[in-house]
């Protein structure tokens, strides 16, 4: 059928990085992306000003949440074949253990990529991927040209 959705064009790491580097806040946090095949990992190298609790010390919960949110956005961008930056509607974060003062990693899984909404799950870990420090479940509004035309 002619109106079948086209196979998403493959986005390479440089396109993804270009999109990401244009986001000042991603730079503020220092988030980096690594793409192997279709597997995307976001890396948050540790730096002192990411600390939320200096006693333990532990990463700020908001920072861990923001890392997972950015990972979700990048994963949707990849799944869509690179369009506009999706907009977050809601997120729900489970904090599983305190983030230590070391590098943090995150990977996202797009549970459903609809026409207007994407459902995404993300996990963040440090030492052991099987022992995540936090998990996120969120809904994102896709800003495809179609969806935009619809709202106008």
């Amino acid at each position, binding site marked *: 059928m002619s109106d079948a959705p086209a196979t998403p064009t493959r986005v390479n790491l440089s396109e993804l990085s270009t999109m990401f580097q244009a986001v000042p806040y991603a730079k503020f946090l220092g988030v980096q992306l690594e793409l192997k095949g279709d597997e995307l990992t976001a890396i948050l190298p540790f730096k002192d000003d990411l600390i939320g609790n200096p006693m333990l010390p532990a990463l*700020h919960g908001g920072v861990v949440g923001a890392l997972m949110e950015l990972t979700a956005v990048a994963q949707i961008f990849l799944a869509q074949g690179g369009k506009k*930056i999706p907009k977050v509607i809601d997120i729900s974060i489970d904090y599983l253990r305190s983030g230590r003062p070391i590098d943090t990693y995150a990977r996202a899984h797009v549970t459903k990529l609809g026409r207007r909404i994407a459902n995404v799950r993300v996990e963040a870990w440090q030492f052991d991927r099987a022992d995540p420090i936090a998990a996120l479940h969120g809904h994102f509004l896709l800003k495809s040209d179609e969806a935009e035309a619809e709202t106008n």
Partner: protein
Amino acid sequence: MRDDTPLWQRMATAGAMMIQGTPQARALGMRVVSITEARAVVEVDWREDLVGDPETGVIASGVVTTLLDNTCGVAAFAALSEPMSTATLDLRIDYMRPAKKGATIRAEAHCYRMTKTVAFVRAFAFDGADETDPVAAAQAAFMMGTSGRMGKNRRPPK
């Protein structure tokens, strides 16, 4: 000598210290507006390096997440009679609309219920005076009295 002043009053006096002692809050330029019993109001200004969408210049949702998380934590603390270590259990945020470019974001949190072990907190974020038009809403739960010993995270995990 025992200090009988309620914790929230001591926190309100300490005000700026609540932020100065938190590196990420300081990096975002957060300001405590007020601390009262079980309530906290904290602000963050729009800044070029905190933008999340370069096309619109809107502040990143991650900044709002961190502001809400932080303000909820302060509100939970302001509901205690004595300081104790806490841990965030979960945080749910609804983003109703993008904040206006250039606007200061103000988070208002209320710890509406404190049990022996859990603090339940609700918060809203605003980018103006209109209380009927929030940017985001949050619901958080904190474990109270966790065994967060000083320097715990400096040691490798078991």
